[in-house]
């Protein structure tokens, strides 16, 4: 039904109600034009050259000269009726003039005439299809004067006019030439702005790509389009070093990140974002992080519209494939994975569950490479820990599967106790512990789920000794919570042993990036974060029972200086018991102030406890 409406437009001079009284001058014009075109072959090209001249006129000539504009419009309209007379060899000049024209340079009437001509050419002969599509795609790349003035309402208006026509043209062409999408999609990826261009051109282009994905063309080329977009997001992401992210002075954010650092998300040698760096924003170019931020926001909005149209499920399948191709194995990817997070938050029962299950399948699949499997379980752990929209029962069931797998592994492992031989097992253990750091409370609150955690003790006390191989901060936090919540009996000496730096963990953590890989750590891009934060579990939201008895340098010491804490381990118990009996409110203002001071006094450069000073 829509097709019929689309096709019955006034692309012909023979307007429906005028057929009987067709304007003779229009008919004459078309006849003259046809004669001009056909006579080129016989050598008489005067009129033809005039036509070419009209079309090749410089845009500046049109500014004041309304006659010239009207002439151009008439010529274009007449040409639409004469496409059968256009020959690819003899009318080469005409065609190159036509394909060099841009919609941005003309008023809406001329735009319509031009687009109709291009559509007629594309559908009438297969020879012109590719050139026509190319010409239309080039209009997705606006000229510099548009990009520099995007906030101007007149320019925004123009932008809407041009893009509406281009998208409508693609639709019309693909109705008449069914194989258009398969020809169009490779061209879309070829015409993508190069990554070196750090301006809003990329944002505009990606916006249009995603709009195409939503249309009938997306049914054929959706996976390619999403691949292209995901790849570009990833490429920009890995270009961003930690220094490039502009920081604001709001303490909340600062606190949050440091608290997460406390939790154990440090990477060896990485510096924390210290202050805003001045970047050269002249000439319309923007900082890479800002560019990535804008692209992510567009992608989020696209996902929202997919959800509103009810097609998020099928888009998610394609999205996961491109995630698996481009992002899963990219260790340096910091923010592009949040695309998946957001998609899951829009539809937790379908997409959220699917994402976790697919990651689990990759982890369990013996056919994938070990690095991929470890990366998958790191993603799974971070996802289960941070996804506010995931029901606790689901998290518990995923943990159970992980534990069953680890238990099975423990049972069948051979005598080789070198850590290098059991990397995947250790990643699994670390994943379980990481998730429990965030979710222990909520899981233990449900008695049925609490019983499912019983195999954990046997895994952790196995001779492979995961507690000494996994990253110390996670282990320490987990043990602390386990003890406080009474998950299992943890002797103080056990904690003590683990807070000492063991040789195994030290040398291991030094060269193994995947151990400190927590992909869904808070998103540091401001606009994107506003989409993510309502569904995100921050570390500060997780209230562990030992929080109340803070001593000033407690947590900091754990990371930087493992040795000293051992002595305070004994006192901790007494204080905890005391606090339980006290009547002072647990989170008094005084405590918070001390907390803040403590955090602010932390050094900005934190080295993991492999440094020799701690031993």
């Amino acid at each position, binding site marked *: 039904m829509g*097709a*019929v409406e689309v*096709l*019955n437009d006034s*692309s*012909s001079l*023979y307007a*429906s*109600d005028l*057929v009987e009284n067709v304007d003779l001058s229009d008919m004459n014009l078309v006849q003259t034009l046809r004669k001009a075109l056909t006579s080129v072959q016989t050598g008489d090209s005067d009129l033809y050259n005039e036509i070419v001249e009209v079309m090749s006129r410089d845009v500046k000539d049109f500014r004041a000269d309304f006659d010239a504009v009207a002439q151009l419009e008439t010529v274009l309209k007449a040409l639409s*009726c*004469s*496409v*059968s007379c256009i020959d690819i060899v003899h009318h080469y000049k005409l065609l190159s003039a036509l394909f060099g024209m841009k919609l941005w340079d003309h008023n809406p009437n001329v735009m319509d005439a031009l687009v109709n001509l291009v559509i007629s050419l594309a*559908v*009438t*002969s*297969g*020879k012109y*299809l*590719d050139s026509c599509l190319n010409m239309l795609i080039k209009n997705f790349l606006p000229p510099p004067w548009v990009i520099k003035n995007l906030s101007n309402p007149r320019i925004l208006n123009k932008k809407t006019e041009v893009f509406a026509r281009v998208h409508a043209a693609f639709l019309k062409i693909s*109705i*008449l*030439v*069914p*194989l258009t999408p*398969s*020809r169009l999609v490779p061209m879309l990826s070829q015409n993508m702005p190069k990554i070196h261009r750090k301006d809003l051109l990329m944002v505009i282009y990606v916006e249009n790509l995603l709009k195409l994905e939503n249309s009938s063309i997306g049914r054929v080329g959706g996976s390619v389009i999403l691949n292209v977009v995901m790849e570009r997001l990833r490429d920009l992401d890995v270009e961003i070093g930690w220094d490039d992210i502009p920081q604001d002075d709001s303490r909340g954010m600062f606190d949050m990140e440091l608290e997460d650092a406390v939790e154990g998300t440090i990477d060896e040698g990485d510096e924390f974002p210290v202050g805003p760096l001045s970047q050269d924003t002249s000439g319309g170019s923007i900082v890479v992080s800002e560019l990535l931020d804008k692209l992510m926001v567009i992608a989020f909005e696209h996902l929202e519209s997919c959800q509103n149209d009810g097609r998020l499920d099928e888009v998610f399948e394609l999205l996961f494939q491109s995630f698996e191709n481009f992002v899963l194995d990219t260790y340096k990817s910091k923010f592009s994975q949040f695309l998946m997070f957001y998609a899951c938050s829009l539809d937790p029962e379908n997409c959220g569950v699917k994402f976790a299950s697919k990651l689990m399948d990759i982890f369990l699949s013996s056919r994938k490479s070990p690095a991929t499997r470890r990366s998958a379980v790191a993603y799974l752990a971070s996802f289960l820990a941070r996804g506010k929209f995931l029901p606790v029962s689901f998290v518990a069931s995923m943990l159970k599967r992980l534990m069953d797998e680890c238990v099975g592994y423990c049972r069948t492992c051979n005598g080789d106790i070198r850590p290098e031989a059991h990397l995947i097992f250790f990643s699994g253990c670390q994943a379980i512990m990481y998730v429990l750091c965030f979710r222990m409370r909520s899981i233990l609150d449900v008695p049925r789920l609490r019983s499912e955690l019983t195999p954990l003790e046997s895994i952790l006390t196995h001779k492979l000794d995961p507690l000494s191989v996994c990253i110390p901060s996670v282990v320490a936090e987990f043990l602390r919570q386990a003890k406080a919540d009474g998950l299992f009996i943890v002797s103080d000496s056990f904690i003590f042993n683990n807070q000492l730096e063991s040789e195994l963990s030290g040398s291991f953590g030094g060269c193994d990036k995947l151990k400190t890989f927590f992909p869904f750590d808070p998103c540091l891009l401001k606009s994107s974060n506003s989409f993510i934060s309502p569904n995100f579990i921050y570390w500060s939201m997780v209230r562990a029972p030992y929080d109340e008895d803070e001593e000033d340098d407690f947590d900091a010491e754990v990371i930087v200086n493992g040795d000293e804490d051992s002595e305070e381990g004994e006192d901790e118990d007494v204080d905890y018991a005391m606090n339980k009996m006290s009547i002072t409110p647990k989170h008094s203002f005084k405590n918070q102030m001390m907390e803040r001071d403590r955090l602010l006094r932390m050094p900005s450069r934190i080295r993991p406890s492999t440094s020799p000073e701690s031993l």
Partner: protein
Amino acid sequence: MEGLKLSEAELMVYIHPSKSRNVFQAICRELSSLLFQYNESFDGVLLAYDASVKSKQAKILSGLHPYFGVRVNTRLLLFDPKPNSLVEGEIVKISAESIHLIVLGFSAAVVTDVDIREEFKYRVRDGEGSFVSRSHKRHVLKLGTMLRLQVQSFDEEVMHIAGSLIPENTGCVKWLEKHSEEALHTDRDHKRRKLA
């Protein structure tokens, strides 16, 4: 409709070793990558295939990646409209300058006004354009009509057919078949009268 043919072919499909777990799926993947493309060896556009592997033995190629070649017996449905053959398609757009149709759901065909015989005249009724035959008022070409046309050329890259309605046996399929039936009946009547 001419232009469709069924061919039997014995192919050798080379498969990467990583796909050795599910060979049949790999074969289908390879063959599917050829769909809706013109293939010179098949001499036509592959529309559909039916593959069967007779022998479980495969020849391993020596080299960096030891691809192995599997013999596959296939039946292929090919579309190859030769010039001057007849094809049929549904009209999706009519204007005074051209008729656009879609053949077999994937191939675009166009008949420009110079290739429409004089018999047909363009008329607009109720906002919709159509071509009506001057000699047979019931012979109408409008949106949704199944049209039989003669192929002038076939662009293999884009699957684009340039067609012609000049020959007498082209036009609306329903009308042509009905018309030829009536012609058959009148012929029989004539013969009966003659004999009688």
